[in-house]
Every structure is written in C-alpha cells, then in structure tokens.
C-alpha cells in the first residue's frame, strides 16, 4: 500500500463518485461528480470503473504527494497547469508519482472542476453504495467534508502500467440544451421566450447545490409558491426574485419553486464547467433529441476505453502536426520509424 497525501488544496474540493442513488424518497441528496464525463475519463485512464470515487478539485490549486511507494493517478476536467518535479503533466492523461514526488495542479483555466483518479480507487466505507461527500448531511468517506491539507488516502501501489492519454470529443461551445418543464405552464410565452433568448452568467455565489443565474428577471404567472415536488439534476427553478437557479448535484430532493426547464443529461457537465461570469445561452430541444443525446452520452462513457492511447504517441495528433506545419517532412506521422527523416532537413 502507498499513501497519497494532500499537501495543499483549495476550497470546494471533495471526494465524489457517481452519486448516492435510491434513497431520494427519504430526503437523501444524490451528490456525485459535477462533470460525469471527466469523472469517467479520469477513472478510465487508470483502469477504474467509470464512476469510482475520485478527488474533485475545485477551481483553486492543489498538490498531492506520494508516500510509502509510487502512486499512479490521472487528471481530466477543467484544464490547468500540472507538473511533477518541474515537468509538465498533460490533462486527460495518467502519470505515476514516484515515492516522495508531488503532483501540483494550478488554478482552473476555464471551467471549475478537475478530477484526480487514483489507480485502484479511493478506499472508504460506502453509504448507500457511494463515497460521495454530502457535507450538509455529514456523509462521505473517507472524509465526510471538503478536503483539506494533511488529508491522505491509503491507495494501491502503482502497477507500473504504461502511461495513457484519452482522446475526448471536443466539448461543444453551443448553448446549454434544456427540455421545457415540468412547470413551464407557470410562465407565459413572453417569459419562456425571455429565458430562452437571454444571455446568462453564473453567479459567483454558486456551489454544488445550485448555480444561480444572472440575467433578466423571469416572472411567474401565478406567483412563486407551488406545492413542493421532486427535483432532478439540472432542474431550473425560478424563486420569487425571478433569478433562476439550476439545481446541481447537492440539491435538496424536493423543492417548492416552479421549474421552468431542465438541463438535458448530456449538457449538465458542460453547465457545471461553465465558469462564473462567462456568458452563455440556453436552447430548448425536443424530448426525442434529449433522450437521443442522453443515450449517446451514456454510450460515450461506456466506450471510453476505446479512446485510450499510449501517452508516447501524444505528439502524433496528425491534424495538430500539419496545422503547426512541422510534419511536412515526415514520411508517416504515425510511424515513428520515419521521423528521423523529418529530423534531418
């Protein structure tokens, strides 16, 4: 066994996984990673199950030190500068920390959450099948609270496997897609149109429970009090002041404000990774499109192992090479044996 010790870490960082399902009927919050694709990508890189527990690193920096042996980790999600002993570490790639080495992560450059998966996973005592931290209910393991410097994980010794990277599809920069409802009939056409046509920004007061949206006030038809009913990840509720809140992973299981729309499953991670202050829009899609996208998203996660590549071929992105006009002399960009030619102009 090795240990991974947190040398430093910013706020809003916690252990997260696929979430705590099955007890919403008792008021138990689901929690889980804000960006499931990045969670799954980081886990896939180190051979874990896609929704295994990882460290969800908030927008600020962090540093992790291997102790009592080597530790193999991978990072995916919000891009940031990362290095081990002065050499840069790529996003969407695995890296093995030798005993005593420290992986340092800088601030998120765009987005908010970066996922650090550890080979063999995080060990803890699951509650309702999950290690995810829900600080309000005091749940989560091994630490039922946000992480802090000095916390450590007992982890598997690094396998020594060759390092991998993962080729993820380029994230869309289009609008965040929503399905109207369940209470869109609590709003008139003009206010629904205002919601869909306006530019929105995520307020700096947002957290894992909800993203507050800054933009025009959305008015209700019959006031803002409805009888509480169930919520889902991505429910966009409109409280009395007209400023919508997108409910995120630490949402309460029920709520009493009208919900104008719901972010589609495939786009929730993209909303989660939208930085505070960045302008974006919503667009409404049909149920058929939303469910088709949800299926594609689930398939993308299932098939992530097909997207793994040897880390050594990282320079062999043909488009990037030809864009940069450095591969012009190579006989074959994918056959390393021919590179010598290019290296001797």
């Amino acid at each position, binding site marked *: 066994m090795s240990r991974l010790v947190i040398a430093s870490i910013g706020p809003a960082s916690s252990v997260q996984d696929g979430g705590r399902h099955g007890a*919403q009927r008792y008021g138990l919050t689901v929690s889980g990673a804000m960006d499931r694709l990045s969670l799954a990508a980081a886990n896939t890189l180190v051979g874990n199950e896609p929704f295994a527990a990882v460290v969800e690193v908030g927008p600020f920096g962090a540093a992790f030190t291997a102790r009592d042996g080597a530790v193999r980790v991978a990072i995916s999600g919000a891009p940031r500068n990362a290095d081990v002993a002065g050499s840069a570490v790529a996003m969407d790639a695995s890296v093995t920390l030798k005993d005593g080495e420290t992986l340092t992560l800088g601030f998120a450059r765009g987005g908010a959450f970066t996922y650090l998966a550890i080979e063999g996973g995080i060990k803890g005592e699951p509650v309702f099948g999950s290690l995810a931290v829900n600080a309000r209910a005091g749940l989560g393991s091994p630490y039922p609270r946000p992480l802090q410097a000095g916390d450590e994980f007992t982890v598997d010794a690094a396998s020594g496997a060759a390092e991998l990277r993962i080729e993820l599809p380029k994230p869309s920069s289009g609008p965040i897609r929503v399905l109207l409802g369940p209470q869109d009939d609590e709003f008139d056409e003009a206010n629904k149109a205002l919601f869909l046509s306006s530019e929105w920004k995520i307020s700096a007061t947002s957290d894992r429970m909800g993203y507050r949206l800054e933009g025009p006030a959305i008015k209700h038809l019959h006031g803002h009090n409805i009888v509480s009913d*169930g919520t889902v990840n991505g429910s966009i509720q409109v409280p009395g002041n007209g400023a919508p809140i997108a409910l995120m992973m630490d949402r309460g299981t029920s709520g009493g404000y009208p919900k104008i729309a719901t972010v589609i499953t495939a786009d929730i991670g993209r909303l989660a990774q939208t930085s505070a202050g960045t302008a974006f829009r919503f667009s409404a899609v049909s*149920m058929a499109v939303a469910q088709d996208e949800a299926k594609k998203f689930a398939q993308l996660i299932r098939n992530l192992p097909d997207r793994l590549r040897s880390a050594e071929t990282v320079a062999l992105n043909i488009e990037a090479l030809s864009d940069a006009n450095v591969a012009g002399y190579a006989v074959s960009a994918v056959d390393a044996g021919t590179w010598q030619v290019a290296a001797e102009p």
Partner: protein
Amino acid sequence: MAVTLPLPRLLPSGDSAVTVEFSRTIDDDANQRVLALDKALAASPIDGITECVPTYRSLLVHYDPGKIGFDALGEKLLVLASQPLPPATKTRRWRIPVAYGGEHGIDLEDVAKALNTTPDDIVARHVAGDYKVAMIGFTPGWSYLSGLDKSLHMSRRQNPRLLTPAGTISIGGIQAGIQCLAAPSGWHLLGRTPVRTYQLHRNPTFLTEPGDRVTFFAIDHKTFEEQDRAAEAGEIIAEQVVA
C-alpha cells in the same frame, strides 16, 4: 360499474425523469393516489425505472432513457395510475414523544398568542391530531405530515431561521413536520422529539415511510434528555403500532 379515476398529468423533468402529477394543490386524495402508484411500481417494477420519489401531489419517476423512452413509460404509468385504489391495508403508526415549549419549542408561546389561546391548548390540539407522512424530502428524514388541525393553520414566519435544531417538531401553513437534522426553517417550532427519523448506522436507517401514520404525545424535558441519549446510542424510541 368501475369508477374511472381522472388521469394524472405527465410532466417531463428532463430526459431521465417524469413527474406524474395528480393535483396542483395539497390534497389527501391525490397523495393517496401518489402512494398507491409508488406501491404498485414497487410491487411490479417497470424495467428502466431507477428510483421513485413520492411527494404530496406527484410521483417523480427517475428512469434510464436507454432502457425505456418517455412515451412508452408514460403509457405504462397512465395504465397503472388509472387502476382503482387498492383497499386500505394495514398501516404503520408511530407514536412520537415530544418535549413541547421552552428551549425545545421556542415558538409555542407566540403561536398561542397569535391564535388567542394558551400554550397548553396548542399542545392539546397538536397531540390530538392523526397525521400521515405525505412525503419525506429537503433533508434526510424530514417528514412532511398532512392532517394538521385546521385551527393550527398559520402562515410561515416572515423571516426563516437559518438553523433550527435536530428533532424539531413544527407547523407551517397547513402542514406539520418532523425534522431530523439541524436545518434552516421558516416553520413555527413547537417542540423537539428525541426520535431520529434518520440515523446512519441504525437498522433501519430511515424510520418513517411515506404513508405511515403518526401521533404525538407530550413528555417532560427530563424524559427528553434521557430518551435523547438512548436515541443517540441507536434506540428507536418511537413506539410502533400496527393497525
């Protein structure tokens, strides 16, 4: 002749959940139908449904769109929801001890004043009630009760409190509640119970289920302290009656 029940509305809650709405208001008949549909789905599960969350007036059904689409699921739910309600079966009843007033129920006197009566009378009316767990939500174990005496209906506080104690027994609007964890609340705090409706390492973790019946009885503050310690050690404290 078979009585046909009005069909609920199917409201999409995103691509992976549907709200089966029986009423827009708090309505005991609607809540009965919610709980009946929830039971029917537990008894004969539909492939693709991952989780059901009953509330006062609707059942939120989470599902995997990779296994069943909105239209196919909706049809099945409407068939189940239009079945006549099953005959009433045995329900569980919980008798819950409450230490009323004083430090445990800081709003008791104000509620009495607002309703032009005495604190003892408020306690008598609250204890006389026959309540039903209509839903559990907001925080773990927070049981929303229907059946509050009409004379105790009063609007919520203008200024919700940011923190109210674990075990708070309160009323708000036309509802009564059992709160398990410390949480914000805009309701009127009448007392506290030592009973934990949610306790992580106890079996069962969750005491109350939607549909359970609840009655309260008064205990003195000394008994509260004793029972609170026992409850902390994992005792259930609440008395269960099956009727």
